[in-house]
């Protein structure tokens, strides 16, 4: 463990805790609203450790959707972790005996979140010569505060959620939270196309049973985004090819 890199991770991640806290509060409140006991609500933050998947699946269960749809939606939202995993894998070449290596990798992977991925990936790009130990230390320096903050914020949501007046429009804060998460992810044209197509399809198919409109919208948006990126790449790739010839 490299102390300098660990604390550099803590410093880098601390501003993001400001936005993780209200999100965790809402996750705690939404879990209770969906019919979870306080214990289940807290355990959902430990098991998922993924706010948007937690909130969306709790809301689906509460609205009477089948369990399978709630699980599928949570997994769909968490598909992005697979991408993070693929990008970070070559940057964190963990070594050791097969069992030790697998345990270490699983341990690190449990803490993988949007913020931890973004900051670690950036740090390694800034200092490509840093050692594996320094990289892992930085990763944990980002990950542990996020985990702790998430658990405490959920607990606070569970404790104070019951005390909120019934007139407070807490359900409305759930789409607002997703709205706040949506905008920073739209950085280019294909991203905007993915969002527009997904939103329109979800609206068009909203009356389908079991919230299948959400699944249809999400899958349609993902395909539209990837497809339009392919189209744009083809267009911009041509002049480069021509220049080579």
């Amino acid at each position, binding site marked *: 463990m490299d102390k300098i890199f660990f604390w550099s991770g803590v410093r880098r991640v601390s501003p993001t805790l400001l936005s993780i806290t209200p999100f965790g509060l809402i996750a705690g409140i939404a879990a209770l609203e969906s019919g979870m006991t306080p214990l289940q609500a807290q355990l959902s933050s430990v098991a998922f450790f993924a706010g*948007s998947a937690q909130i969306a699946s709790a809301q689906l269960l509460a609205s009477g959707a089948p369990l399978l749809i709630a699980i599928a939606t949570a997994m769909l939202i968490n598909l992005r972790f*697979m991408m993070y995993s693929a990008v970070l894998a070559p940057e964190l070449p963990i070594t050791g005996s097969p069992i030790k290596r697998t345990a270490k990798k699983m341990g690190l992977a449990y803490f993988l979140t949007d913020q931890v991925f973004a900051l670690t990936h950036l740090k390694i790009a800034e200092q490509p010569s840093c050692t594996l130990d320094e990289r892992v230390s930085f990763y944990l320096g980002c990950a542990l505060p996020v985990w702790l903050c998430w658990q405490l914020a959920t607990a606070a949501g569970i404790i104070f959620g019951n005390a909120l007046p019934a007139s407070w429009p807490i359900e409305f804060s759930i789409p607002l939270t997703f709205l*706040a998460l949506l905008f920073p992810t739209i950085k280019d044209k294909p991203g905007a196309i993915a*969002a527009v197509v997904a939103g329109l399809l979800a609206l068009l198919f*909203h009356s389908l049973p079991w919230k299948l409109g959400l699944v249809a919208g999400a899958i349609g948006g*993902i395909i539209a985004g990837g497809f339009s990126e392919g189209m744009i790449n083809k267009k911009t790739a041509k002049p480069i090819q021509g220049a080579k010839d």
Partner: protein
Amino acid sequence: MSLDWKIWLLLLTAGVGSLLLRSSFILLADRYPLSEFWMRYLRYVPQAVFSALVVPALLLPSIEKQALDPQTLAGLIAALVAWKTNNILATLVAGLLMLWLMAFANNFY
């Protein structure tokens, strides 16, 4: 199945599933790196999923009653704040405050 059982099953399966998605390529990348083809689609998971969650939630109330619903208006204001600030807290405050103000004005008149 009772809701309680559904919740426990959700916690178990989604918890294990999340860990598997997170560890997938960290575990397997030495043997099976993810091809650029799949990366290209996975890149758009957040935009698509978040938008599919948000758009119906904000627009359906207005579409169903064929008139502008306070939730839609508050949502549009919040979207503007989200776009300009990229800040969760500011977005929440703007949207909730707007909704609350409109309810207040409605009661007043």
